[in-house]
C-alpha cells in the first residue's frame, strides 16, 4: 500500500505520469459508472415502484392504483405536486372503480434486533387497520420473524380498531397483549416466544396511528376520488 519509499529517487517526470494515470483512470471510471447508471436507472426505478405498489396493494385489499401524498412539517397533508418537501409519505390506494380503499402508511421503530419498518393499511370509512406488512426487519429468524410469517398474528390486522373519539384523537391506542388475551378490537394478540417483536409492532402502529390517523381521517374526504386531483403521481403510470 505504501508508496513512500522510492519517490525521492524518482525523476520528476514520474509525477506527471502518476498524475496522468490517476486522472485518466478516474475519468474512465466516471464514464463507466455514469453510463451504467443511466442505462439501469429507468428499470431500477420501475422495479422499485412496482415493489412499493405491490406492498401497498397488499395492505389495502382491493386497491389497484395508488397515489403518494406527503405529510409536511406542520403535520398537514400535502398533495404530491406541491413545492413543499414532505417529512414522510402516505400512499392512497384506489379500487378499480377509483374509489378510495384506504391509506398505506409507513412506520418504523426499534425492534428486538434492529429497526423494524412496516407498512399498514388504514381504512378511514371503517376506521380500522385493514392490512399489514413488514417491509424490513432483522428480527431473529424463527422467533422474532414470526411477525412477518405467522398467520394468526397477521390476522390481527384485518380489522384493528383505530376509531377516533370526539376530540379527534385515537380513542384507544393500539397495544399488543399476551397471546390469547385479546379482548378488545384495538388490541393485538401477541406471539409467545416473540413477545418483544410483536410488542414492537404494536408500539410502532400505536404511535404511528396516534399521529397520522387523525390527520388522514380529517382529510380523506378531500381525496376520496382520484379525480378530485387530476394530476396523477408517477406511481400510477403504467
Amino acid at each position, binding site marked *: *500500500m*505504501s*508508496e*513512500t519509499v522510492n519517490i525521492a529517487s524518482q525523476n520528476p517526470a514520474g509525477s506527471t505520469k502518476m498524475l496522468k494515470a490517476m486522472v485518466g483512470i478516474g475519468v474512465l*471510471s*466516471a464514464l463507466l*459508472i*455514469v453510463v*451504467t*447508471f443511466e442505462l439501469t436507472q429507468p428499470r431500477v426505478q420501475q422495479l422499485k415502484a412496482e415493489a412499493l405498489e405491490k406492498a401497498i396493494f397488499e395492505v389495502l385489499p382491493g386497491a389497484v392504483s395508488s397515489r403518494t401524498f406527503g405529510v409536511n412539517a406542520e403535520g398537514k397533508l400535502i398533495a404530491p405536486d406541491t413545492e413543499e418537501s414532505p*417529512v*414522510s409519505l402516505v400512499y392512497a390506494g384506489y379500487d378499480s372503480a377509483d374509489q378510495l380503499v384506504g391509506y398505506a402508511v409507513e412506520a*418504523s*421503530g*426499534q*425492534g*428486538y*434486533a*434492529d429497526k423494524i419498518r412496516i407498512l399498514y393499511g388504514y381504512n378511514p370509512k371503517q376506521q380500522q387497520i385493514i392490512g399489514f406488512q413488514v417491509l424490513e426487519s432483522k428480527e*431473529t429468524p424463527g422467533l422474532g420473524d414470526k411477525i412477518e410469517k405467522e398467520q394468526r398474528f397477521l390476522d390481527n390486522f384485518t380489522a384493528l380498531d383505530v376509531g377516533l373519539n370526539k376530540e379527534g384523537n385515537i380513542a384507544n391506542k393500539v397495544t399488543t397483549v399476551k397471546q390469547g388475551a385479546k379482548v378488545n378490537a384495538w388490541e393485538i394478540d401477541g406471539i409467545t416466544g416473540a413477545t*418483544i417483536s410483536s410488542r*414492537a409492532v404494536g408500539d410502532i402502529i400505536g404511535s404511528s396511528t396516534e399521529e397520522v390517523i387523525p390527520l388522514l381521517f380529517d382529510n380523506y374526504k378531500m381525496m376520496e376520488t382520484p379525480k378530485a386531483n387530476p394530476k396523477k403521481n408517477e406511481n400510477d403510470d403504467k
Partner: protein
Amino acid sequence: MNTESLGTIFLNASLVNNFVLAYFLGICPFLGVSGKMETATKMGGAVMFVMLISSVCAYGIHAFLVVIDAPYLQLISYIVVIASTVQLVEMFIKKMSPALFQSLGIFLPLITTNCAILGVALFQTNKGYGLLESVVYALGAGVGFTLALVLIAGLRERLTFAEVPSISKGTALTLFIAGILSLCFMGFAGLGA
C-alpha cells in the same frame, strides 16, 4: 425520521450488532491479527481512529454528492477518499512520530481494505445519520471491533498453550471461537431498545 438516541446508536454498533460478530465486517484482520494480544489492541486502536476519520470524510462526501446530485459516485468516492486519507495520515505519522508509527501506523494500510471501515461509511449513509450521530456510530463500531478483537486475542493466546487437535488448529479454531463469541453477543440483543 431518526429517533435513536446517541447512546442507542453506540450500544447498537458496539454490542448488539457488533461489526465483526454480527455483520461479518473486518473478518480478515480479525482472523489474521488476533493471534497476539499486543497486536490486537494496537490494531483495535488504529481501526477506531481510521473509522472516525473515514466517518467524517464520508459524511462530507455524501453531503457533496447530494449537492451535485450524483449518488452513483458514492461508493467510488468513499473508497478513494478513505484510502488516500489513510495513506496521508500514515505518511504524516511516519514522518512526525516514528514511535507512534510503529505502534499504530503500520496497521493503517491494512485498514484501508478493511470492510468495517467502508461498512461504517456506507451504513451511516443508509441510516441517514447526521454528523454527530455518524461519529458516535463510528466510535461504537470501532469499540465493538476492538472488543471482539481483544476478546478473541486473549482466547487465542490462551489456546496457544493447549493440545488443540491438529485438524482444528489455525483458522478453523479461530472461526469456532468467533462463532461462540457471536452467540455470546446475542445476549446483548435488545439492549438500549
